[in-house]
């Protein structure tokens, strides 16, 4: 107290004002990076999607709707977007089904075991997706361990990669940790006493699950599903490595248009359409989930 009194004293309002003005310097570098290297590039991509394709330079500065007309009227593009969404929806549903019991087990584990299991769930995320895809390539190859096992038990060797099967396995594997974590956080908030109360009042395990645990975990289900869906829509490595050249999804198509065909306006328009359709799908899903959650509350 004494020291405070002897320190040079400014009027509190003055010091507050200079502090506020200087504090903006903390924000400035981050905002500059965000504006010049995130907002502007996306705005630029939107702008270029309305320009005319050129052959002697990246594009002509002539406004046109051709790119969007091309994207919208070419059935092939819609087929690809449809397939991409189908992959993403099934991946989200499959990771949800597979992860739920795991997340439940983790949420009901004692703290130490929970920590250890959480570290194991997160471990794959610390390994690059190229490495993980390669791991699956080794496992799923025609002469790989999985096929060896399938032959040994008498099912016989199957074609497991360079086709959709490989992409399914890879997508589910890569995005499952995200689902487990979302579900576990939600389930940890469901008080185990509620389940005990329900059981002691005579409800079966099945009824207790559907009437108590599942409804209360819906926020985690919704968050995990949206996250996995978004990640799976934009997956690039898995469809290209595990699908070989036999599976074409929207991100592969967009990169092809930009990198191989050098058709930047078309690539930009495709990107914008994929973006819009994805946001639309999430909006519809959120509305459905909001209604479901209102129903149980």
């Amino acid at each position: 107290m004494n020291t405070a009194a002897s320190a040079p004293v400014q009027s509190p309002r003055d010091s507050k004002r200079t502090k506020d003005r200087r504090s903006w310097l903390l924000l400035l570098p981050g905002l500059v990076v965000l504006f010049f290297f995130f907002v502007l590039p996306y705005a630029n991509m939107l702008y270029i999607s309305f320009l005319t394709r050129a052959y002697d330079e990246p594009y002509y500065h002539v406004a046109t709707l051709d790119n969007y007309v091309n994207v919208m009227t070419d059935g092939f593009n819609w087929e690809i977007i449809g397939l991409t969404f189908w992959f993403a929806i099934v991946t989200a549903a499959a990771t949800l089904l597979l992860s739920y019991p795991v997340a439940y087990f983790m949420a009901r584990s004692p703290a130490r075991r929970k920590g250890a299991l959480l570290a194991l769930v997160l471990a794959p995320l610390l390994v690059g997706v190229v490495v993980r895809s390669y791991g699956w390539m080794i496992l799923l190859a025609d002469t790989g361990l999985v096929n060896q096992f399938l032959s040994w038990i008498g099912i016989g060797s199957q074609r497991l990669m360079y086709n959709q099967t490989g992409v399914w396995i890879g997508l589910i594997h890569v995005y499952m940790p995200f689902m487990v974590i979302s579900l576990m956080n939600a389930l940890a908030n469901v008080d185990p006493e509620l389940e005990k109360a329900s059981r002691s009042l005579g409800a079966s395990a099945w009824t207790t699950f559907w009437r108590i645990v599942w409804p209360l975990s819906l926020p985690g289900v919704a968050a995990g599903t949206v996250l996995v869906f978004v990640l799976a829509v934009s997956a690039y490595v898995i469809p290209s490595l595990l699908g070989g050249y036999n599976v074409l999804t929207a991100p592969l198509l967009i990169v092809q248009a930009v990198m191989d065909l050098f058709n930047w306006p078309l690539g930009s328009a495709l990107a914008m359409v994929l973006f819009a359709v994805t946001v639309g799908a999430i909006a519809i899903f959120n509305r459905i989930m909001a209604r479901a959650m209102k129903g149980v509350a």
Partner: protein
Amino acid sequence: MNARTRFILPTYVILMFTFLLAPIVIVVLAAFNAGEYLTFPPQGFSLRWFENFFASGPFMRALGFSLRLALSVTFVATVLGTLASLFVVRHARRLRDFLRLAFISPLAFPSILTGIALLIYFYAIGVGTSGGVALIVGHVLVCTPFVFISVTSVLVRFDTSIEEASRSLGAGPFTTFRRVTLPLIKGGVVSGAVLSFITSFDQFPLSLLLSGIGTTTLPVQLFDYLRFSFDPTAAAASTVSVVITVVAVILTERFVGLGSLYGDR
């Protein structure tokens, strides 16, 4: 829970963890296996794939470049993320929620689309992808949110009266930051930095789109290699990259405890 479910659930959980970890374990096994293909039983222990890897010019250049890139990106992202977090937690008032969302938003956008947007943008402003500037910028963009999130999670729990005490005892703002604030938020800063390093080191879509001549990263080199051949030199390369990540995590554990890597305490 009856006896039957008490047995079924743990068995199922073990199965799922096997599924989650199998491909990573397999890559490491393949790297030390003598044969061209990994089959059961393995054909014996060998370091030949590591010899191939360390003798390969393209792989060595990519590894060196990836490490330098990840270190520079980590430095920039850590400074940017920490400063932004200090502002948002301490000084932002009405704009707080907006700014928080803004700084995390690069993670919400698909990095393959961000990569294309940046590629086109860097050509439009006349810089292009040579020299690695576009690559650094792209990586900084997706790494900064991790620092921002982990520093923020520490800062919100931290009592500002300690700083006020330091100031009122006569310490200047810089001294207060260095001697009081920084030690308290160290855990958040370090774990954010480690996540940045790992994110940059493993980043693929942005690197694929933004790497120019001479700036190929290890994941991109590995991807190119896998499209044409399948031999376990790629497994050795993967193992080396896994080991680098594990070392980063172990160092964090030694200095600040592993819990802070996941954002708690």
